[in-house]
C-alpha cells in the first residue's frame, strides 16, 4: 500500500539557518511528489512538485526538493529560513497515472518553528 512518512512532527530552526524537512514514501513505481505549506489559519498552498525529469526541483519562496529514487525520499530544503516560513509542511504522493479518481496520499505534516 502507498504511504508517506514525515518522520519529524516538528522542527525548530533559527532564522537564517538552513532547513531540511524529510519525506519518505512507499510506492511500487515512481510517483508524483508534492510539498504543500499551510500557514496558520490558512489553506494549503503548493510549494513544488515532481513529475519526471530533473530530480532537483525548484519551488516558490526559495524552496527546493530533491527526489532520490534509491532512498524513496523527497526532502524539502531551504538555504536560509525566514520567520515567515513558520508553518506546517505536508508531503504528498500521487499515483501514476492520475485518473479522475486518483487521490493524493498525505504525510502527517511537519511543523516548522523559527527561533529569532
Amino acid at each position, binding site marked *: 500500500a502507498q504511504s508517506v512518512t514525515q518522520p519529524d512532527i516538528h522542527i525548530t530552526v533559527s532564522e537564517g539557518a538552513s532547513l531540511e524537512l524529510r519525506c519518505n514514501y512507499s510506492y511500487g513505481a515512481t510517483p508524483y511528489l508534492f510539498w504543500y505549506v499551510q500557514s496558520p489559519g490558512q*489553506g*494549503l498552498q503548493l510549494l513544488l512538485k515532481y513529475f519526471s525529469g530533473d530530480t532537483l526541483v525548484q519551488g516558490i519562496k526559495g524552496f527546493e526538493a530533491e527526489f532520490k529514487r534509491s532512498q524513496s525520499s523527497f526532502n524539502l530544503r531551504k538555504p536560509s529560513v525566514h520567520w515567515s516560513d513558520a508553518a506546517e509542511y505536508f508531503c504528498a504522493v500521487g499515483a501514476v497515472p492520475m485518473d479522475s479518481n486518483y487521490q493524493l496520499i498525505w504525510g502527517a505534516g511537519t511543523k516548522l518553528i523559527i527561533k529569532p
Partner: protein
Amino acid sequence: DTAVSQTPKYLVTQMGNDKSIKCEQNLGHDTMYWYKQDSKKFLKIMFSYNNKELIINETVPNRFSPKSPDKAHLNLHINSLELGDSAVYFCASSPRDREISNTGELFFGEGSRLTVL
C-alpha cells in the same frame, strides 16, 4: 479574486444540528474535493467530484452528503452533528492537463472550522 472560497469560515453549533458548508471555485477546474483536517493536522479525503459526478467517496458516515450543482460548486451538508465532527473542512479543486489526466495540484480554500458543542 479568491480562487477557492468557502463559507462560513467559522461555524459553532450544538450536537444534533444540521449544517452546510459551501464551496465555490472560479478557476475553471473539473475536479473538486472535500478534506477533513483533525486537531493533529492529519488530512483525510472525504469526497471528490469530477464535473458534478461523484468520483471518490471515502468511508464517511452517511450523515455527510456532498452536492455539486455545477462543476464550480461543491457543498457539504452534515446531518445530526456529533462532537467528533469538530474539525477544519477544506475544499479544494484541481485542473486537468491534456497529457496527464489530472495534474495532481490541488488549490485549497482557507478552510471552515467547525466546532460542535
